[in-house]
């Protein structure tokens, strides 16, 4: 059924459709609507689940990990400082191989305090072992959460679904809400073989020696790498059921593109419009929206850039003292496969600055012609900087 809803409402609806059993969360703007909606659904008995109003994000993640270890399907959501406060438990979740699904609302980190969109919060968690998927629109939020449970429970690894603060969390769009029966067929109940069970006592997370430690981490690394393939299979299966594709990389007119604009999140729409305008002006441009950032979707990316000579990366984040985090990711990929491709990295749209079609066209022109308003710092060019 088609409904008008915000990204936050879509996240709550998806969690309900996934028949989550334990929700534990701590409020933070702009995530609050998600957990308020879920507590309301549970209060009204529309969803049979436990709601844990914990005293911190660290405890939110700790408690959903514990609940997941008993075989329950769990959910939490956070943002910005809340996500960063969870950092220790993010490592723990992936190490414990629990299929936790979390929604993160991408918001800037202070100081200075700022409630608006920025990707540094979740990209700073890229080494925790979570799969990371960034949504393009409200429908993507709803669908990606359902796919995420399927993927997480296949691989026994946690998945983070991120959406841009306010651009998605608080923006209403039309979304198709699937029937519960159809979702139940797509997403079977979670039945782990290893769990905390007094009839089959096991230790979880016990101390282990050096040899075994390396083997366990190696196995986890391999399994995490395989998540691109697991996501592909799951999203294909989802498309078979619901007729909506959610690939790890969304390519727009890249088949013959010379210049490729790369970004993640809700800027994908502006990039498509910019690509159309640039093509009218005679630039062979294409757009790539990285939906999956961890693991880096090497196979999909390779397929999407057959003729690219120049990558223009727009980071809504920065690794201070280095450069944009996506730019680093892409450079690592290009170094292995396409050392002759040029890369220009921009930092744009941080702290709620808009990435409009004009912004993207301007950045591409600056990358090609060397003239524009973005200012240089090391290997990055920053937009929206006061003179």
């Amino acid at each position, binding site marked *: 059924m088609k409904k008008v809803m915000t990204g936050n409402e879509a996240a709550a609806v998806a969690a309900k459709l996934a028949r989550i059993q334990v929700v534990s969360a701590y409020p933070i703007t702009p995530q609050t609507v998600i957990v308020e909606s879920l507590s309301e659904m549970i209060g009204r008995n529309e969803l049979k689940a*436990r709601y844990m109003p914990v005293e911190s994000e660290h405890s*939110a993640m*700790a408690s959903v990990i514990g609940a997941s270890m008993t075989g329950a399907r769990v959910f939490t959501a956070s943002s910005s400082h809340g996500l960063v406060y969870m950092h220790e438990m993010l490592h723990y979740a992936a190490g414990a191989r629990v299929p936790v699904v979390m929604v993160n609302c991408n918001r800037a980190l202070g100081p200075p305090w700022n409630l608006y969109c920025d990707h540094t919060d979740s990209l700073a968690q890229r080494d925790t072992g979570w799969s990371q998927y960034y949504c393009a629109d409200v429908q993507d939020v709803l669908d990606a959460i359902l796919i995420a449970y399927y993927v997480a429970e296949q691989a026994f690894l946690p998945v983070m679904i991120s959406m841009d603060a306010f651009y998605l969390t608080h923006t209403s769009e039309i979304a198709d809400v699937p029937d519960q029966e159809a979702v139940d067929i797509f997403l079977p109940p979670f039945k782990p073989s290893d769990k905390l069970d*007094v009839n089959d006592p096991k230790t979880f997370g016990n101390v282990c*020696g050096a040899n075994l430690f390396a083997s366990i981490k190696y196995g986890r690394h391999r399994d995490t790498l395989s998540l691109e393939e697991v996501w592909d299979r799951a999203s294909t299966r989802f498309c078979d059921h619901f007729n909506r594709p959610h690939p790890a990389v969304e390519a727009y007119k890249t088949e013959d593109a010379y210049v490729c604009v790369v970004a993640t999140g809700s800027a994908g729409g502006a990039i498509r419009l910019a690509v159309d305008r640039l093509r009218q002006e005679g630039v062979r441009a294409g757009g790539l929206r990285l939906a999956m950032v961890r693991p880096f979707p090497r196979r999909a990316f390779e397929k999407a850039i057959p003729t690219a000579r120049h990558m223009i990366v727009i980071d809504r984040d920065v690794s201070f003292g280095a450069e944009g985090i996506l730019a680093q990711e892409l450079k690592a990929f290009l170094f292995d496969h396409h050392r002759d491709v040029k890369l220009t990295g921009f930092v744009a749209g941080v702290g709620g600055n808009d990435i409009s079609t004009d912004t993207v066209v301007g950045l591409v022109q600056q990358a090609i012609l060397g003239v524009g308003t973005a200012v240089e710092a090391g290997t990055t060019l920053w937009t929206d900087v006061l003179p």
Partner: protein
Amino acid sequence: MNENARLERELFTPGHLGCPGCGAALGMRQTLSALGEDTIVVMPAGCWSTMIGIYPYSCLTVPVASVAFASTAAFASGIKAGLSIQGNDHTTVLAWAGDGGTFDIGLQALSGAVERNDDILFICYDNEAYMNTGVQRCSATPPGAWTGTTPDSAPKDQRKKDIVGIIAAHRIPYAATANIGAPEDLACKLKKAKDIRGTRFIHLFAPCPTGWGHASELTVEIARLAIQSRVFPLFEVFGGQTWQLSPMADKTSVDAYLKYQRRFQKMSAENCLRFQVQVDEDWRQLLNKCRPQVPVTQN
């Protein structure tokens, strides 16, 4: 109970990696005997997270989750929520943390769980310092005690945090102190705690020969001296309101308790006296709390 019957109930098998004479080892054995096999143990960083053995070995025959330091109570609450939504309301979820993991880094999560009245049993085995990292001061360390971060040149001045008072102030259904030197009292409190729903907290005194500098065969003796001197009196608190003393031998001075332990050896006579004064003051206050309340008549 004959030996076979006792062994049948023994959920703590040989091979723990604790120090000889470890009070916390005795405490776990006594606790699991009372709680039985329908128990899941959650333990944070601390002596016990290494004492259970190196994977794949474990000296405990119940499920164990080794968790992040600050997360114990929240983790345990999550386990309970997961079990409960799947229809299991009988399994005891035991959060088993040291004093550092309870008084210091674990206090926020513990306060949250108690305030929500999550159905877990939280036991703090208290050896009065960060022992697993090699004896450093924490907020459970008594004044004057030597630790690696309160050396003789800079002794600890602050008094031990009143953890049961803090937890009781949450109006917790059941809180109690217990001592590995009084196993019958501990078993009785565990049985009581097991049958109460909501959060239950037991502060379990567990001497540490390595950190306190006493002979390993004196663990139980020192634990008993702590009760007798009222350094660690035994009591229960119901609903955060009704305080009740547990049976204890007649009160003695703290001298015998202090003299067996190297950590108090450099304590000045003045500080020993101050320690006695503080113990007496705490004991008087506890007696006041435990006095039956006189009903107030309103005219």
